[in-house]
Structures are given as structure tokens and as C-alpha cells.
């Protein structure tokens, strides 16, 4: 379904990085206050909030919201693994579009540094359990190995994507990874192997952080921010898996790649927007090989053509369809709950023409995509007036 009358009023986020000294609450407070300030409101104008995090702490979301005041607003917790932030955003967008809310907030936060510390190590997390809950890196490496087998893709293709995102990240002060020199594919390939063929520099870092997006009726945005471009939400589609032969029930982290194609198709149809209209895309590049798959699955090239996009540099800033302009999960970082809202942050800056050295010229339409373990997929289309 098309979303009408929902636009981004304000965004805010912390820089994603290892935050040894700061609590989840402090990070969330920083991001939420930044978004409220950017929106030009306080909590009294927020009708409802969706709070996204993966940490196993019940009630944390309501406690976080108290940092902004106690106004009695409904607060709902959302958890969908890596897709959590965009799942929360979708609820906020629909709450405004339906007329139930004039202003709605989506806020996400997590400390992966604390969650990763829970791993048992030894012979590998989950290696000796019945469901072989292997590292997500290994799961996406299974995609990469199959792709190389079927299409002749080389590790160099994945390395080029990773290097591109590292170099995008260096232009984003909120990115975790801030390389002090231009990263080359050779450097990416030479970093330690994580899961063949994926090396450490092709894999997202362990991050802590928070991000927030406030959604409102476009009339509210125009009244609060006269003369500023209005960033509208055109569609927000969220799916779990559809059964197909070859489905892996046990151990798999994220389901078949086709889930992204199915979700994207619905999002494009709902918005009346095609891949040719999209000026920049942010996708789940937790592992660089995923991004290559999504070029095809999100409709930016034909099946089997993704390698050519990489070779032509089409998905770098300045290219035909820049991907992960803020560094993506590989460089901006991937703390879990806030990741999707960092994508909304970047798209909002881009569509307002406020992305500084990362600005995509005349950017009008942006796409945000995430997959999440379990598994789920979400595709969101935003467009300025």
C-alpha cells in the first residue's frame, strides 16, 4: 500500500562505534534529543513512539522514553534483528499516514559490544549446537561461495564493494570506520579471513549506538520547517519468508535472497516508483557480498549483471546509482536496533541536499533496505516533493 501524508520531521543519531563508557540509555538520549531538536519539538508533540532494540532487556524502551519526559504517550517495543530500526520506522510512518498520529517517533539503540561478549568462543559460536547457529558471517559466506560457483564472481568484486563503502564512510563523521587513506581492494583482500571468501574488512564492525527519526504529517513539516525540502515516505514494506524448496529451517541466519526481490517489488508498486527513479540506495551490506546480490534483487541491474556494476564503479558516489553513501553497515557501522534509522538519517540528509561531501547531485528518491535474522526483509522508499 502506498503511504501518503507521512514525512520526516527530524533525525538524529550518535556516531556508531565501540562505546565502552556510555550506557545504552545515554546513547539513546543523545540520538533522541538530537532528533527532537532537529524536528523543532519536545516530547509533548509526539503522539506515539516505537522503540527498537535487540538487547534482551524487557521494558528498556519505555525507560529510555522517560529520558525525554513523561507525557503518557504509548510506547511499543519492536524487535526484528538487523531490520529492527526500519521495522520501527514503518510503524511510525503508518501511524502518521493512517491519521492516528500527527507526530510519531521511531528510536533504536543497541550495544553490540555487550551482546558479542556473550559468545562462548571455543570452537566457534554455536558450532556444537543442534541448530548450528553459525556466525552470520558464515551464512553470508555461503551466499558468496555459491555466487562464485554459479557466476564466476571473484573475491575482488566483494573487495571493491567493501573498499567503496570504507571510502564513503571516511566522508561521514558519524561513521565508525574513518580510514586515514583511500582504502584499496587489495588492502581489503589482505585483511584476515573471517569466513571464506569474506575478510575482516568486508564485514561490518561491532558497534554501539542510537538513532532516531521523527515522522509527521507533511503539513506539520512545512509549518515547522518552511522553505526546507519535505522528505516524504512513499512506501514501507515489511515481509517474512515465503516457503520455497531449498528452504533451510535449522541454523540459517537469514533466508533466501529472493525475499529481497519480493519485498522490493511490493515497495516499488506501492510507491509508484521504479528502480530507475531511485537516486541512492542503502542496503544491508553487513557483508560486502550481500550488496552485490542486492544490486540485482533491488532491480538496479539484470540477473548476473551485478559484477559489471562493480567493475564500472556505478554504485560509488558519482556513479549511476550510489549505494551506501554513508559507508553502509561495513563502515558507518551496524549496532543492530539503530541501523535502519541511521539509513533514514542519511536519506533525509541526502534528499534535503545537506549531505556535504557525500551529496548525491539532485537526489530526490532514496531507498532503504534491510534483512534481519529469522528472517525478515524491509524496503522503504522516500522521496522529496
Amino acid at each position, binding site marked *: 500500500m502506498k503511504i501518503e501524508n507521512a514525512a520526516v520531521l527530524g533525525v538524529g543519531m550518535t556516531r556508531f562505534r565501540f562505546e565502552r563508557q556510555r550506557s545504552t540509555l545515554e546513547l539513546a538520549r543523545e540520538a533522541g534529543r538530537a532528533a527532537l531538536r532537529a524536528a523543532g519539538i519536545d516530547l509533548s508533540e509526539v503522539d506515539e513512539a516505537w522503540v527498537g532494540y535487540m538487547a534482551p532487556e524487557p521494558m528498556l524502551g519505555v525507560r529510555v522514553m522517560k529520558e525525554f519526559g513523561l507525557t503518557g504517550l504509548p510506547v511499543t517495543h519492536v524487535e526484528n534483528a538487523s531490520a529492527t530500526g526500519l521495522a520501527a520506522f514503518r510503524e511510525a510512518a503508518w501511524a502518521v499516514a493512517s491519521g492516528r498520529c500527527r507526530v510519531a517517533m521511531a528510536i533504536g539503540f543497541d550495544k553490540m559490544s555487550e551482546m558479542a561478549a556473550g*559468545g562462548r568462543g571455543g570452537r566457534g559460536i554455536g558450532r556444537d549446537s543442534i541448530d548450528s547457529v553459525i556466525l552470520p558471517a558464515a551464512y553470508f559466506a555461503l551466499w558468496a561461495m555459491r555466487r562464485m560457483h554459479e557466476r564466476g564472481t571473484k573475491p575482488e568484486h566483494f573487495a571493491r564493494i567493501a573498499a567503496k563503502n570504507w571510502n564513503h564512510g571516511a566522508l561521514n563523521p558519524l561513521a565508525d570506520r574513518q580510514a586515514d587513506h583511500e582504502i584499496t581492494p587489495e588492502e581489503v583482500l589482505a585483511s584476515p579471513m573471517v*569466513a571464506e571468501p569474506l575478510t575482516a574488512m568486508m564485514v561490518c564492525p561491532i558497534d554501539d549506538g542510537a538513532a532516531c527519526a521523527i515522522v509527521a504529517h507533511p503539513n506539520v513539516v512545512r509549518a515547522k520547517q518552511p522553505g526546507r525540502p519535505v522528505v516524504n515516505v512513499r512506501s514501507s514494506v515489511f515481509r517474512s519468508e515465503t516457503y520455497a524448496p531449498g*528452504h533451510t529451517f535449522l541454523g540459517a541466519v537469514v533466508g533466501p535472497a529472493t525475499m529481497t526481490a519480493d519485498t522490493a517489488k511490493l515497495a516499488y508498486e506501492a510507491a509508484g516508483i521504479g528502480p530507475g527513479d531511485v537516486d541512492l540506495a542503502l542496503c544491508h551490506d553487513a557483508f560486502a557480498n550481500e550488496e552485490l546480490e542486492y544490486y540485482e534483487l533491488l532491480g538496479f541491474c539484470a540477473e548476473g549483471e551485478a559484477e559489471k556494476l562493480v567493475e564500472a564503479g556505478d554504485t560509488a558516489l558519482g556513479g549511476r546509482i550510489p549505494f551506501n553513501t554513508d559507508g553502509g553497515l561495513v563502515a558507518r557501522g551496524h549496532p543492530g536496533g539503530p541501523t535502519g534509522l541511521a539509513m533514514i538519517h542519511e536519506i533525509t540528509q541526502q534528499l534535503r541536499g545537506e549531505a556535504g561531501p557525500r551529496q548525491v547531485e539532485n537526489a530526490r528518491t532514496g531507498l532503504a533496505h534491510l534483512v534481519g535474522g529469522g528472517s525478515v526483509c524491509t524496503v522503504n522508499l522516500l522521496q522529496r516533493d
Partner: protein
Amino acid sequence: MTEAEIRRIPIQPGFFTIPDDPDESPRLLGSQCSACGESFFPRREICAACLADSLEPVELGPRGTLYTFTWVHPPLFGPLRADAGAYGVGQVDLAEGPRVQAVLSGERDEFSIGMEVALELETLRKTDEGDEVVIFRFAPAALEERRA
């Protein structure tokens, strides 16, 4: 205690068989839909394909084709331990249909996509009572034949 008295027990019941003869391959415990014929691993009550609730228990494997695999180097994540070696993980298409993800038993160079693999049991540890706790793995089929 003689060897014959050592019992093998599954790491978790309900997922695979443990044959009395240690040379015999284990099988996976799955379900087949009596309405549409689709097979699944692990066992389930409702068909994921046609939603019928008439599933029959079946035993699957032990042979399959390696659809994809990787070699994982775990010391890069979580608490580091010196003995954490690299290991293989694969997805195997069983002849009956289901695709099964599991750890691979063997060395990196023994595996290639499209090869035939077979189920085997690996002993993870012994209980205080002396029983062996086992889990299923996939090994190259040729290797499994040599062992048998």
C-alpha cells in the same frame, strides 16, 4: 567398561538417529506432507508449503549434494581461545528434498560445491556417566565409505 557398554546419546533428542552399529550412517528425522509430498527437516506438524496438518514422520539421508559451503575462522569474534580452529559449514541438498545446514567434518581441501556428502556422527564430549554425546555432521561421501 568395555566398548560395547559405551552409550551414544544425542546432543538433543528428535533430530537424528543413532544406529546400534557404529559403522552404519545416522539418518535425519524429518516429516513428509501426505497432501503435497514436500519433505522437511527438522520434524514439523504443519506443512510449510501447503499448510496441511497431515505430516508423516520420515527418516532422511544419509546422502546429499553439497549446495554451498564456507570455512569459518572463529577466533576473530568473541572471546579468543587459542584452540579455536577453523571449521567448515555447508548446506546440503538431501535426495528427499530438504536443504540442511550443518558443520562439515574434514579438511578444507576435501570439499567442493556439487560433491556428494554423507551424514556421520561426531562425539563432542563424554558425560559423567561415560556416555558419548554425539551430533551429526556431513563428511565427503567417499571418505565416509572408506571409514565404513
